[in-house]
Every structure is written in C-alpha cells, then in structure tokens.
C-alpha cells in the first residue's frame, strides 16, 4: 500500500472501504470534494466535535478500520442537514450509518444509549420512552390524565421478527 497515516501508523483497508461503498449502494461518496458544508452545519459538531468531512475523506482514502472502532461515528444526531445540503450528493450521513453497521458487525462497543433504545423498542415498540409533560403552572401530566389513548406494547410476533433481524446482523 502506498499510504501510511504517520500518527497511528495505520494503512488504508480497501476491502473495508469497498464494504462501505457496497452498503451505500452507489459510489456517490467518492465525489466529495471537501467543500466542508457538512461540517459547517453539523448539529453534532458543536457539542460532540463530529467532523463529517473528515469522515468522508478518511473513508475515501481507505482509513475505515480506525473509524469503525471509534466513538465519533455514534455522535451523529441524524438531523440529515448534510444530506440536504451536500452539492455532490455524497452526504456523510449515509457513510456514518454504514460505518455504524460495520462497527456492529465487528462487535465493536456500541454506546449504552443505543442498546437501551433497542430494548425500549422491544418492550414498547418506540425508541424513546413516554415522558410526562409539565404545564406553565408546573403541574405534571401523564398520558392518562390528558385522556390520551393507552399505548399497547408490541405483539410477540413483532418481537420475534425484530430479534431475528438483530441476529441476522
């Protein structure tokens, strides 16, 4: 290989790069010309230092392994601004999702919150749990006091399908 990252001594992994491209179902990613619009508007940048253009370029050069093992790919808040604004249709969001998939395949450590969300889906059918709301007079209301219909947990057949899908991953 003709490239070495002198900071980590990592070499590009073209197979992993190809896997990412396959997952994206197209080669739009290679069209990134680093206008850095994605990072300029990234919601996660301000709090979590996610730099989508760096991820895009690293995948393009083949430095995929380090990324798939990193925490940074889990910080994307999926606001999809980068998908909307990318001038080359090379949105890093899809690359980040593909990297997450690759990380799970490789049994990398997935942040706890993501695991919690999965169990919530299993139990309740939705990713975020129900929260009580607070009025201006600081009175708390739950669904029942607001006379909202009761939400039933998913049927066992859904859970079976969901678990099977997870296993296949």
């Amino acid at each position, binding site marked *: *290989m003709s490239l070495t990252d002198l900071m980590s001594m990592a070499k590009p992994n073209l197979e992993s790069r190809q896997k990412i491209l396959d997952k994206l179902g197209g080669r739009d990613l290679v*069209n990134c010309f680093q206008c850095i619009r994605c990072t300029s508007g990234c919601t996660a940048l301000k709090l979590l230092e996610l730099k989508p253009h*760096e991820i895009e370029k690293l995948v*393009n*050069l083949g430095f995929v392994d380090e990324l798939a093992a990193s925490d940074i790919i889990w910080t994307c808040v999926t606001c999809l601004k980068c998908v909307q604004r990318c001038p080359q249709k090379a949105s890093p969001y899809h690359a980040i999702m593909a990297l997450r998939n690759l990380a799970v395949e490789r049994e990398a450590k997935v942040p706890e919150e993501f695991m919690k969300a999965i169990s919530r889906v299993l139990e309740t059918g939705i990713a975020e749990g129900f929260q009580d709301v607070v009025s201006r007079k600081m009175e708390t209301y739950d669904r029942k006091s607001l006379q909202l219909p009761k939400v039933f947990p998913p049927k066992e057949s859904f859970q079976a399908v969901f678990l099977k899908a997870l296993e296949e991953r």
Partner: protein
Amino acid sequence: MTRIGVYVCHCGLNIAGTVDVEKVTEHAKSLPDVAIAKHYTYMCSDPGQRMIQDDIKKHKLDRIVIATCSPRMHEETFRKAVAEAGLNPYLVEIVNLREHVSWPHAHEPNKATEKAKALVRMGVARVRLLESLKKRKVSVEKNVLVVGGGIAGIQSSLDLANAGFKVYLVEKAPSIGGRMAQLDKTFPTLDCSACILTPKMVDVGKHPNITLLTNSEVLGIKGFVGNYEVSVLKKPRYVDETRCVGCELCTQVCPVKVPDRFNENMSQTRAVSIYSSHAVPKVAIVDPQQCLRLKTRKKEVCGKCVQTCEAKAIDFEQQPETVQLKVGGIVIAVGSEVFDASQMPEFGYGRFPNVISNIEFERISDASGPTGGKILSPKSGQPPKSIVFVQCVGVRDKRFHEYCCRVGCMVSLKQAILVREKNGENVDIYVCYNDLRSFGKGYEEFYRRARDLDINFVAGIPSDIRVNPDGSLFFDVYERGTNKLLEMHADLVVLANGLVPSTDLAKINELFHASRSADGFLLEAHPKLRPLECSTAGIFLAGACQGPKDIPDTVAQASGAAAKAVDLLSSGEIELEPLKAVVDKDLCSGCRLCESLCPFVAIEMKKEGEASRAEVVEAMCQGCGLCSAACPTGAIKIQQYGSNQVLAQVQAACVETAGGS
C-alpha cells in the same frame, strides 16, 4: 472669439456620488470664453451626445471640454459625436473626473470637488490652444506574417488564408505542430491530440495561400502598421525539400545517435532524421552539430545518407538564406515553455529517474513515444503500482512564477485518467493539490469522472521527495481534509510543471517592440477590451505567448487575432492618428538623441547638405512623447502637446481660487 462648451458627466453615481457636479459646472461658467456649461447623468449616452451636438449648432461652439471618465474609454466616442456636428474632432479635450478624481478620492468629497474644478479649469485653458488636425490614410499590404507554428499559429494562418490573405508562417523547429503535437490525449474529451491536430497541419502544408518557412527565424523588422518589411533567416536543412519523400532510409543508415528532442530526450534518433511521425513538412533534416561530415567539414567523411537516398535529396552544400517579406500585419504565436523542475531540488527532478515532468508523461503515454504508449517507471521499466501527481510546480510560487498556470490541474486529471484506463485497477493514483481548478466547459464533469475512477485527491503538497535504494519514492504530506500526516510511497511521481514564458520572448520583445507584463508573457493592449492586440499597431497576439492557456482558449484567441488582422487590412487602407511628433528643422541640431530613444524606431536622420536632421516616419510614430521630452533644443513636439498647450494647463492649475488653490 473662442466659444467653449463644458460638459460635466455624472457617470451615474460614479462621479456625482463624490464630486459636486453642480459646483463644478458653476465654476466652469465663470471661466473666460466659456459660452455654456452643463451637467448630465450619462454624457456618453445617445441623449448626452445629442445635447453636445445641438449646442454646437445652436450656440456656435468651436471648442468642447468634456469632464467624464478616462479618455481611453470614450475619447473616440466624443470625437465622433463632435465631428458629426461639423466640428474638427481634435478640438475636444477630455477631463478625467472618474479615474483621476471620484474613484481615488471617494472618501474626501470636498477636496475631490476642488480637484475637479482645477482639472476643468486646466482643460478649458488647454482646449483654447488646440489645433484642427486631420487623419491620414495609407495603403496596406494584404499579407500577414505569423510567427510560430503551434496550434495558435496554425489556426491563425488557416483563418487568414481562408479569408483570402497571403500568409507567411515562420516556425523555428523543423516541423509545425508545437507543443500540441507532443501531447497524447486532450482534456476534457480525451480525443487524441494527433487526430485533431494532424489534419490542420496538413491543411497548412497544402493551402495555396500559406507559405511555410520551417527551420527559420525572424531576423529583423522595419516599417509600420500595414507596411512591415520582415527579413527571415531560413537555416539550411541540408536536405532538398522539393526532393525528399520522407522515406526515412537515411535515418536508418546514419551512424550518429542523438537525443530525440520531440520525445523530450527520452529516446534517441539519428543526426539525420524526420522531426516526428506527423511532421509537416515531412522532410528530413541534418543536425549540423552532430553530423560527422558537417562537424569535420571534410567531404570524404561518412556520407552514408547520400549513398542511400534514392531521391538524391541530401545536399551538404545548402547555405543559410535570408527571405524578405512585405506584410501588413503580424500575428505573434510563439507559445510558452514548460517549467524546468530541476530548479526545485526538493522534488529531485533530474536526480531521481522516477520523478518525471508532465510533458515527459505525455511522451511516455503517446503511442509514438519512447515506450510505445505503455506507462512504465523509467528506472525499473515496470508498470508502476502507485503514481502520485504533484500540482503547482514552479507556479503559484513566488520563488519562480506567481501566476496560476491554468492547465496543470486539468493536465494531471487527464493523465491520472489515462493511467487508470491503461494500467487498470492495480495502480494507486493520488493527486496532491493546493486548489483543484476545473473552470472550463466540461472540466468540472471531467474532475468528477476522475473521482469516479478512484483517483484519490490529497489536499496538500509534499515539502520534499525522497528516494529508496530501488528507485521508488516516498514523502510525507499533511492532508488538510483529514488533519493527518500521511506517508506516501510511489513508483512514479509526475510533476505538474506550469507553463512559463518562452526564452524567445526576450528576442520577440526586441524585434517587434512587444512589451511584456510582470509575469514575463507578452502584454496585450488592454487586459479586457483589447486582449488580442499588442500596443504596437498591426501586431496581434495569439495563444500562450500572451499568458498560459489550454488548447480551447488558444484556438479561440488565434481565431480572434486572425479576425483582428482581417479587420485591419481588409479595406486595403488604414487611417493614422494625427497625434504624432513633428520636427522643427530650423531648431534640430542633428544630435540623434531622439533617434536612439524612440521605442518605435520612428525617427530617421535625413542628410541636408553637411548636417543631418531628424525626420519622423509618421506611420510608425505612436505619439509617446519620449523624443519631445528629451530634445535639448525643443525641436520636436507632439501635436496638441506642445509647450504652449501644456504650460497653459500648468498656469491654470496654479491659479488661486476662492475655495483653495
């Protein structure tokens, strides 16, 4: 009694936004001999011009001052307008209130208004003393000299020849074709350079209106626009052009091996050879520095080519020949050179065989080149596993050339695509760049095509290139996009050397009085409005001699320059500006100072009995005034810029006024 009309232009808000035009107009009205003073939004517009014309008739005006933009912009416009109203067009004085007042003094409107008043006052003082002048007509030669036989010269020659003009095309190499003939494929369409160029070269060779003078150089030039006399040195080929059939039998028997210039010295040819496989004219040439017989000057030496040549074309008795041409216009199309990267030791060009220039890559990639079109590392002779292109070599670099070479990015993109097409998936291709500039029609799409072919772009240029014992190369690059320091290994590094001014331009500058801009290229008469002309009348610029250019731009400029030459010469006569130097023979002492100073060689010394007197060749004089300023006896003056006319302005400038001085 002189009756002067003063017209102050607002130029929208360009002038009126800073200068108080009403105050200036009022001031003009107070000046002696001013019959009328007016201001208007756009003096150059149709109603503006009509206002002046109507006033000339109605108020019997005989002198006009127009306070407006630079005379370079609209002097001609107003002269025409005034002439239509029956006044001599040279009785108009332009006062520059825009470039000289409102633009530079935008932050100090009061002082600007005072300056505007002073300039108008000076204009009025001067206009009173102007003389009526008349344009003179001279007839012109309907022949054109084209210097340089690259794609620019070829295009200009063909356009002119097709328009019915007789063209002399002078080329210093043994064949026309220039740089473009050396290229493999051309961006952004990847059509092969030879396929689109060779037919044009053949057309030039066959055209009845084109006289082709290859292996020739311009020696000297005399005369003036429409009537140039040019002498051209036709160097001996030692081969009779009328007899040689281009069979190359002589090359096969010649024992002297010499580096092949057409292949950038990467292969060898013989002392007698044909310049390239597509050469026009396809005639052999003997290299007098290498040929054994010509080197030793002995008739009995070698002579193998003479024995082999069936057409009996080899002629060692040929002598240099000087050809005299009479032409009306000249198109300069001498092109540019490629930067010599050995001036940058950090990249190892010239020391490391696997570091090559982009023009050498073209020869390697070309089917008629030294490797038969196979892309191989020069050291190992094997196809490279990784290739790196390094951009902006010798250009965008204040140590060498500050400008952008405008072709390097596209050339490297094209070459990278050619590597991918020829050597397949098993080669890593990287382009190290500053900014990738793909600005032309179809260029951005071409850049996208390169990215689609897995050509990697690394935002950063290496500081230096180092070599391994096996000849492969390695270097560090800090990549801006990823903020990583990368180490790169390459079997072949191609340097994107920029286009630089040709060394011939110094000679061109001297011969044709064609000025050069700060970047070293030839200077056009105006960067926006007269890009095809030289400041010397009758001389036109085409192609990369005026600034670095790609093929589409070169061809466009070449056709434009040809059209300009047609425009100048088609009527068979031209009008000459009367603002020239004139000599007072009684005052001239014959010191010849003016003759040595004149940049246009417009002064000749004429014998008058014992003494000689300066005489101005009116058609060559450009009215620059150098002679007038230098003349120790005040014998030469420029029409309309005599001492009385200039001093009147100075006096008007020094008059004390209520608002200041």
